[in-house]
């Protein structure tokens, strides 16, 4: 599958300039024209992405070295003061800790649960499509709707959760939910799970359905039980999907904002605060824009380091497959 828009493959792509004979000159001009054509298709995307994504991120990096309230240009240069202050700030250190907890719990509870549901729904069952739609539906609801809904369900005393506990005689367990520092993070996690597990289930389901039926049949003929088939056939073949899902889950947890902001705004007393919430508090409520920029730089750094390390060590095998098709079918 070689594209006709590719330049002459024998001498490689790009602007290689050998001796300037008339023939070569014509070829060079053709290559230049080719390059200009290819890049001109990119221009609108580059303009949009450059101005509205890259520029703000670079500017955040710049502003993080200033003490700055967000008006005029940053002028009060403070070197790395914002960063040293950040790593002594108990709220921010707490954010990092909570982020780690949520990442671990998501990976240990949410994703295995999603996988279990995907395995169940991969079987021929009556009503499978209905369950699938039901489990996935929360994913299309906005974080704000989800957040408001659950802040009312977990409202102390008169919310649905407390009433249900009361009906089964467990009144003592309820009440706190989002207002008790010791339960708020767990309750936020429950809401996250309700909202997002269906997304991961859907990914796994797609992965499971792409496994050829012959493999499963062969395993059955070889006498493999359900668990053995899962362990030795489905799970290895699902590995690329699992790796992507872990990646999305971690990146999503690092960025967590809307849900927490709507339900608790980080409270009580910072016990559900995330990095993005702290960033928002400093940047838009207290006008410490330089300091808030430092938070965004650290967040970006964490995401980037995680993403690069993950790509380098975990996703590499998956991406290798992708890059061999880059030129089209290994041509």
């Amino acid at each position, binding site marked *: 599958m070689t594209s006709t828009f590719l330049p002459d493959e024998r001498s490689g792509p790009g602007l290689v300039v050998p001796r300037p004979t008339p023939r070569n000159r014509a070829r060079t001009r053709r290559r230049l024209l080719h390059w200009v054509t290819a890049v001109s298709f*990119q221009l609108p995307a580059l303009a949009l992405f450059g101005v509205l994504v890259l520029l703000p991120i670079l500017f955040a990096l710049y502003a993080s070295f200033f003490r700055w309230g967000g008006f005029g240009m940053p002028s009060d240069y403070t070197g790395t003061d914002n960063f040293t202050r950040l790593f002594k700030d108990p709220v921010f250190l707490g954010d990092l800790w909570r982020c780690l907890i949520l990442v671990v719990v998501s990976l240990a509870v949410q994703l295995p649960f999603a996988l279990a549901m995907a395995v169940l729904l991969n079987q021929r069952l009556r009503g499978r499509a209905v369950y699938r739609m039901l489990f996935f539906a929360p994913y299309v609801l906005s974080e704000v709707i989800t957040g408001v809904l659950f802040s009312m369900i977990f409202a102390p005393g008169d919310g*649905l959760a407390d009433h249900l506990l009361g009906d089964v005689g467990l009144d003592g367990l309820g009440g706190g939910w989002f207002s008790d520092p010791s339960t708020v993070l767990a309750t936020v996690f429950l809401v996250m799970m309700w909202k997002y597990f269906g997304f991961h289930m859907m990914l796994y389901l797609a992965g499971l359905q792409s496994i050829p039926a012959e493999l499963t049949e062969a395993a059955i003929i070889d006498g493999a039980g359900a668990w053995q088939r899962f362990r030795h056939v489905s799970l290895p073949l699902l590995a690329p999907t699992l790796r992507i899902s872990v990646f999305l889950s971690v990146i999503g947890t690092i960025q967590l904002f809307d849900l927490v902001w709507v339900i608790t705004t980080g409270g009580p007393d910072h016990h559900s605060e995330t990095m993005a919430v702290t960033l928002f508090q400093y940047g838009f409520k207290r006008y410490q824009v330089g300091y808030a920029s430092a938070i965004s730089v650290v967040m970006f750094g964490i995401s980037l380091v995680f993403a690069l390390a993950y790509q380098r060590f975990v996703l590499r095998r998956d991406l290798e497959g992708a890059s061999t098709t880059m030129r089209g079918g290994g041509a």
Partner: protein
Amino acid sequence: MSARRSGRTLPLHVILVAVGAVMVLPLLYAVLSGFKSTDQLSRNPIGLPKPWVTANYTGILGSGSFWKLLGNSTLIAVATTVIVVAVAALAAFSFARFAFRGREVLFTLFTVGLMFPFAVAALPLFLLLRSMDLLDNPLGVILPQAAFGLPMTIVILRGFFREIPAELEEAATLDGCGPFGFFWRVLLPMARPALGTVSVLAVVASWNNFLLPLLVFNDPKWWTIPIGVQQFQGQYTSDTARVFAYLVLAMVPALAFYSVAERQLVGGLTAGATKG
């Protein structure tokens, strides 16, 4: 035979029904609560409404403000989707069908964009939009949303564009198509399912966006559904039944859209996940 099979699947159904109930219960609770008066809600929190009160729902639907939010959300979602899909399709075409110097660098730049937390850029973006006079202007939400949607859209579309056979491209070239002609007349019509998928993803992302409209729109005239929900909750804190009714009405467009576009949406997620 069938008895044995249903016997085997019974435990599975028990699990699925239990999980399904947990998923549905919050939604059902909201719908029913919306049919109660707040007074009734506090006396009868989990039973069926008695009597069924429709005033909450009709009151919200009767006031113009809900429809205004709906209109704003729709306008912004449609404009964002048109821009992001058009711009990303051009870029993905160039990534998929051309070999040119700098391609891998550019593509990496866009894929790195997949991991930029939006919150990271929010602050400087806000300052930038302020200096461009785009606050309280729908473009202030539409353009950044399109920009942040580019990486995902480009990655998915590039995958689909690569699969279109080169023979078609040769045939089009012989018939006198230039690169843009091939893109416009052959590639885009053939990639319609893929375009549908990325469009649905873009609509959902725009529809649910909260932080950006929150920052950009001070003036209620441009508020979108998520902002409206948050404001309404703040305004009617004590009138719980009415807030439930509002929530339910705010869910309806998203769920209706989902039921229509389910296949496209799910297809997009799985294409993104398995194609790497």
